[in-house]
């Protein structure tokens, strides 16, 4: 007891500092897997109507509700206009849209890069801090428990530790001549602006974003996986325009992804000493294709926007 007390005290002092820390610092790209389109069969998650009417079924339903309506159901942890399902379509069920059934059985996950093991809870905390530009709920909070239960249930019958086809977003090959922001702008105006707005600002009904913002203060921040042009191209190619996934060519997906990610958005919460350059060198330089800390039209991107 005598030895424990100082240790506990030290913990109590350290804890508040820890809470503000980044839960999953390494947000770099994950190992790609084959697209569902290329696979002979695709994993089928269970049906909502088959959920048991007990405490487990209720927790799963809570998780589903948080996933599709995050801004209202977990408001204190969300700092932008997004809901989880905006980037994980069909309530996290759709293959090639980073489905939760593809994710859950792959954790805890080892990352060689920083020699760390990340739990599933930490992965979700990371999504709150980057994609949702918000705060990480505590690992033992109702929000994390419910989202974990929902993911576990969706993965019913999936093998553990084996990457299933359709996990994450498929890799889309970069155009031979690189991406073209001007062409991206044209594609955006023709194919995306009707829903996401002329300035990527999204569209609302009352206080709720219905069509989510693609850039600006209410979108994902500079640390989120979607800020990588290659990651966004994979998502867009297979999932956008909504309901018409697969209609853009690989090149078009890259051009429009680059155009989208050449705009300002909230700052990377890992910002080092207030320096975009330092943050770029540490976190962005070797992470896929991205424009953080790069000059575009004479302006350095990555300044952040509030």
């Amino acid at each position, binding site marked *: 007891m005598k030895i424990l007390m100082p240790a506990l005290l030290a913990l109590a002092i350290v804890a508040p500092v820890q809470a503000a820390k980044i839960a999953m610092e390494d947000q770099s790209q994950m190992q790609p897997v084959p697209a569902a389109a290329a696979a002979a069969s695709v994993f089928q998650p269970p049906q909502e109507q088959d959920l048991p009417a007990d405490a487990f079924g209720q927790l799963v339903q809570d998780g*589903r509700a948080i996933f*599709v*309506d995050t801004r209202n159901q977990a408001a204190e942890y969300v700092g932008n206009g997004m809901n989880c399902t905006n980037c994980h379509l*069909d309530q996290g*069920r759709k293959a090639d849209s980073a489905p939760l059934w593809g994710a859950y059985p792959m954790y805890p996950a080892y990352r060689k890069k920083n020699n760390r093991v990340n739990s599933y809870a930490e992965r979700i905390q990371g999504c709150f801090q980057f994609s949702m530009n918000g705060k990480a709920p505590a690992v033992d909070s109702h929000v994390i428990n419910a989202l974990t239960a929902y993911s576990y249930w969706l993965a019913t019958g999936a093998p553990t530790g084996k990457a299933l086809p359709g996990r994450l977003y498929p890799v889309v090959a970069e155009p031979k001549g690189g991406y073209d922001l001007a062409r991206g702008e044209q594609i955006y105006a023709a194919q995306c602006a009707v*829903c996401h707005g002329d300035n990527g600002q999204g569209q609302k009904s009352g206080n709720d974003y219905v069509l989510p913002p693609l850039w600006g203060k209410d979108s994902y921040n500079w640390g989120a996986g979607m800020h990588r042009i290659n990651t966004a191209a994979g998502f867009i190619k297979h999932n956008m325009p*909504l*309901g018409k996934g697969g209609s853009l060519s690989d090149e078009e997906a890259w051009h429009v992804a680059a155009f989208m990610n050449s705009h300002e958005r909230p700052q990377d919460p890992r910002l080092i000493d207030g320096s975009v350059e330092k943050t770029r060198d540490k976190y962005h330089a070797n992470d896929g294709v991205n424009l953080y800390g790069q000059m575009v039209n004479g302006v350095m991107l990555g300044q952040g926007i509030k």
Partner: protein
Amino acid sequence: MTFSRLPLAGLCALLLAAQVQAADGQKLLTQGGANPAAMACAGCHGADGMGMAAAGFPRLAGLSAGYLAKQIGDFRSGTRANPIMQPIAAALSDDEINAVSRTLAALPAPAYPRTGRAEKAEGSGARLALRGAWERNIPECVSCHGPGGLGVGDTFPPLAGQSAQYLSAQLNAWRQGTRKNDPADLMGHVARALSDAEVTAVSDYFASLNPQGAAQ
């Protein structure tokens, strides 16, 4: 000072003249346009703009002015075919279209519940509306038309407050190709993926949403 009053008076006169010339939306609604073929909207859509469910005439009250003006333009051009509306649209001037669209947009509409994707979905209609049918690339209706199908911006009209007759007629018009005025075939490709039974179910679902505070 005395001189500066003169141009002001001139401006007032101009404004007055403009007011006389501008089309009167309220008059268009209740009495029709300058051309007698442009019949009064109220005749079919009601003076309150809430439509006539049994006859399949839609609610226009509270729809966005931009959406309404586009639809009238589309009746004119024929990308939206309708034997009653086409001759009326052809008889309206641009000025009249804008004026009547603004008047209709400003009419009060009841408040419908903001049922969203977090809600339970029982039955095929509610499932299409709140969950979609993604195995056929059909998104949740509410993911564009907004919670409760209340409508979003100038592009996505409200579905709440429309009758099952009107909604199913529109879905079928898309399936048959008589309505093809949607941007990038966004609605057409969804409508064509629906079965007859699903058209009925999802139309019934939105038609059954009662205004807040009203009896069920």
